[in-house]
C-alpha cells in the first residue's frame, strides 16, 4: 500500500448472519454437510475507497445505510466478510463517545481507564490527564462519579478524552452536534488543529453544514453501497435530494436521474389537468409522513413547485424565487374559499406562514365539482438544509382567519432541501456584506518590528 494512503478499503462487503434460533449456530457448526441455517443481511456491499493521509473525509447517509458498520470495520471491531480494510497508523476507536465509561467511577478514573484501553503508557496518561481535565472544563465534577453528570458534562468529558488520546486517525461519529455553542466551537477548533497537524479525520454526521464546512471530500452511503464520492457540496446535494425525494431506493439506483416526469411539462398543462385522484404523492418533494385532516368538502389534489427553471425539484437554492401552485377540487359548495401555506424547520419552528386572507385576497365562492388552482410566489433565503411546508384549504365562514373551517390541511406535505450559498450561522441567510472602513489611532506596527 502506498505510504500516503491512511485508509484503504478494497471491495469490502459485510454480511451479518441472522439465526432464527441460537441453536442454529451450533447445528450449523456441527452439521456434516455444512447446511446453511442463517439468513444474511448485507450491511455493506463492494465498498472501495482510499483516504490519503491528512485528508478530512465526511461520511453521510440515512439511518441504516451502513455508516456505523463501515466505521466498525475501520476500527477493526468487526471483520469484513470479504475484501480488505487496511488502516495505517493508530486509530482512536471511539464509535460512541463515552462508550467505555462506567457510571459508578469518577471522571478521572474513567478517563485514565480509557487511555489504558487504548494502550497509552503510564507517563503519557499522567501528562494527558490535566489537559483533558482543562479541556472538558467541568470543574470539581471531574472527581465525581459519572452518574452524577448532566448529559452535557458527560459529552464534554468524553469528547475531551477522545480528542486528546486521539492518535494518527480520528474518527468522529455524530458527536459534534452536542454541548453548548462555546464547547462546540472548542471542539471544531481542536478538529482544525488536527487538520493542521496533517492527521486524517473521518467525520460522520447528520449535520451537513459540518461536513461541507470541514471536509475536503464526502462519501455518501445508501443501502450499503457508495452512491457518491467527491466534493462535499455535490455529495450533500445528492444526499438532500435523496432525502427529500426518496428517489434512491435501497437499491441505490436512480439518484442522479432528473425529476420523474408525470406527463406534465408546462405550467399550462399542470393547470389544465384535472386529476381524478390525489397526485401529491407523485411529487419529488412529497413527504409520506404528512399529517392530513379537514372536513372533506374539498381536497388538495396536487401541487407543483417551480424554481430556477426546474419543475418539481426536491432541492431549491436558498434565496431563489419559488412558485408554488396548489390545486384543490371541491366536492361541495364552499362560501369563502381560502388558501394558505407555512414553512417550518425540521424542529417544527414556523419560519413563515401566510394565507389568502392575510394577503387581502377575497376568493369568490366555489361550486361543487369545481377545481381551483392558486399560486404563491416566494423566496426561502434560509440557512437550513431542510424545510417542511404545510398546505391548507379552508372555508373562511366568519370572514376572519380565526373562525375558518379547515377543508383539507396537509401538514408537512412537502419536504424541500435547501442549498445555502452563504457561510453563516442561524436560520436566516440575510447576505450580509462586510468590510473594514477605517482605522484611526496609532499606526500599525511594521511586520517583524516587535521582539
Amino acid at each position, binding site marked *: 500500500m502506498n505510504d500516503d494512503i491512511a485508509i484503504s478499503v478494497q471491495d469490502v462487503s459485510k454480511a451479518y448472519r441472522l439465526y432464527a434460533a441460537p441453536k442454529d449456530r451450533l447445528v450449523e457448526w456441527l452439521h456434516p454437510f455444512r447446511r446453511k441455517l442463517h439468513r444474511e443481511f448485507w450491511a455493506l456491499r463492494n465498498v472501495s475507497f482510499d483516504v490519503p493521509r491528512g485528508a478530512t473525509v465526511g461520511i453521510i447517509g440515512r439511518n441504516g445505510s451502513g455508516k456505523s458498520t463501515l466505521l466498525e470495520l475501520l476500527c477493526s471491531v468487526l*471483520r469484513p466478510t470479504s475484501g480488505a480494510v487496511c488502516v495505517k497508523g493508530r486509530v482512536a476507536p471511539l464509535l460512541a463517545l463515552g462508550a467505555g465509561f462506567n457510571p459508578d*467511577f469518577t471522571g478521572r478514573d474513567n478517563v485514565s481507564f480509557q487511555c489504558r484501553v487504548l494502550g497509552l503508557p503510564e507517563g503519557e496518561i499522567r501528562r494527558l490527564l490535566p489537559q483533558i481535565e482543562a479541556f472538558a472544563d467541568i470543574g470539581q465534577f471531574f472527581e465525581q462519579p459519572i452518574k452524577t453528570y448532566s448529559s452535557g458534562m458527560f459529552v464534554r468529558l468524553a469528547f475531551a478524552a477522545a480528542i486528546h488520546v486521539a492518535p494518527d486517525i480520528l474518527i468522529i461519529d455524530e458527536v459534534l452536534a452536542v454541548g453548548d455553542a462555546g464547547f462546540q466551537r472548542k471542539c471544531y477548533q481542536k478538529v482544525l488543529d488536527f487538520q493542521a497537524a496533517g492527521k486524517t479525520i473521518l467525520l460522520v454526521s447528520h449535520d451537513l453544514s459540518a461536513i461541507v464546512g470541514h471536509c475536503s471530500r464526502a462519501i455518501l452511503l445508501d443501502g450499503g453501497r457508495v452512491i457518491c464520492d467527491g466534493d462535499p457540496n455535490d455529495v450533500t446535494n445528492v444526499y438532500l435530494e435523496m432525502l427529500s425525494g426518496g428517489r434512491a431506493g435501497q437499491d441505490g439506483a436512480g439518484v442522479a436521474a432528473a425529476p420523474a416526469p408525470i406527463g406534465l411539462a408546462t405550467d399550462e398543462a399542470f393547470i389544465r389537468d384535472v386529476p381524478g385522484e390525489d397526485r401529491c404523492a407523485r411529487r419529488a418533494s412529497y413527504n409520506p409522513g404528512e399529517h392530513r385532516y379537514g372536513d372533506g368538502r374539498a381536497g388538495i389534489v396536487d401541487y407543483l413547485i417551480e424554481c430556477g427553471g426546474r419543475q418539481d425539484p426536491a432541492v431549491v437554492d436558498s434565496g431563489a424565487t419559488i412558485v408554488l401552485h396548489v390545486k384543490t377540487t371541491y366536492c361541495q359548495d364552499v362560501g369563502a374559499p381560502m388558501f394558505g401555506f407555512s414553512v417550518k424547520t425540521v424542529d417544527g419552528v414556523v419560519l413563515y406562514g401566510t394565507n389568502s386572507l392575510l394577503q387581502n385576497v377575497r376568493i369568490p365562492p366555489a361550486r361543487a365539482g369545481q377545481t381551483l388552482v392558486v399560486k404563491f410566489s416566494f423566496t426561502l433565503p434560509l440557512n437550513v438544509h431542510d424545510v417542511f411546508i404545510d398546505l391548507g384549504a379552508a372555508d373562511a365562514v366568519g370572514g376572519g382567519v380565526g373562525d375558518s373551517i379547515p377543508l383539507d390541511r396537509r401538514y408537512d406535505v412537502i419536504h424541500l432541501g435547501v442549498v445555502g450559498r452563504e457561510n453563516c450561522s442561524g436560520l436566516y441567510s440575510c447576505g450580509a456584506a462586510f468590510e473594514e472602513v477605517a482605522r484611526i489611532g496609532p499606526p500599525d506596527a511594521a511586520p517583524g518590528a516587535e521582539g
Partner: protein
Amino acid sequence: MTPPTSWTFLWRLPGQSGLVGVMAAQEMRKRYAGTLGGFAWTVLHPLMLIVIYWLVFSVGLRVPPAGNVPFVIGFLCGMIPWLMFAETLNACTSAIAANAYLVKKTVFPTEILPVVHLAAGMATHVIMLAVLAVLMVVYGVGFSLWNVQFLYYLLAMSVLCIGLGWILSALNVFYRDIGQVLAIAINMWFWLTPIVWPLAMLPGKFQAFVRLNPMIYIVQGYRDSFIEHVPLWQNWQGGAYFWILAAAVFMFGGRLFGRLKGDFAEAI
C-alpha cells in the same frame, strides 16, 4: 491473517499489565459498589462459607482430620485455592458479555479478562491465607520454608484457570447456557475434589478415577506446602499429569478464543 493463539496473548500480556491492574481494581470495586460493607464482603463471604462447612463437617458430621492437624486447617488448605478457582471461572464466563460496551465500541483486548478476574481474586486469596496463618498459630501448626511452595501451586492453578476461562468466556458469548451448566459443574466438581473429605477416606479402587481430577494436584499441593511439608518434586507423576492437561487446556483455550474473538462484537 491467522487468528491469534495462546502465545500471542501471553506475549502481549506484559504491555497490558497496567490495564489488567486497573480493571482488577475496578472489578473489586464494582462488586461491592453501593454496599455499606464494601471490601469487607470480599472477605466475609468466603469466611462465612468456611465457618459453615467447618461446623457441618467437623463439629456436626465429625469427619476425621486427614493427618495430625485439626480438620479446619486441612479443610482451609483445600478450600482456599478452590474458592479462587471457582470464583475466577464464574466471573470469566460472563466477563465478555459484562463488558459488551467495550467489545462493541472499542478495540478491547478481551483475552485479558480471565487474567483480570484472576488478579481480582488475588486480594481475597491473600486475606484467606492470612486467616489460615492465624489459625495455624492458634492450633500450633508450625511454619516452614516449605510453605512458600504454595506459590508454585498457585501458578499452576492460574494456567489451568486462564485456559478454562478462555474457553468458557468465548463460548458463553454465543451460548448463555454455559453459565448455567458451569454452576452445576462447579458444584459437582467441588464434591469430587477432596476438600471437605480426606482423600484417604476413599476406597482404593476409586482413587485412580478420582485422581484424574486436576484440582486434586492443587488441593494436595496446598496441603503438602502448609501441613505435610512435602517437596513438590515428590509427587512428580501428579505434576506431569497436571501440566500436560493444563498445557493442553491452555493451548486449546487460546486457539478457540482467537478463532471466536472476531465474532464477539457481532454476537453480543
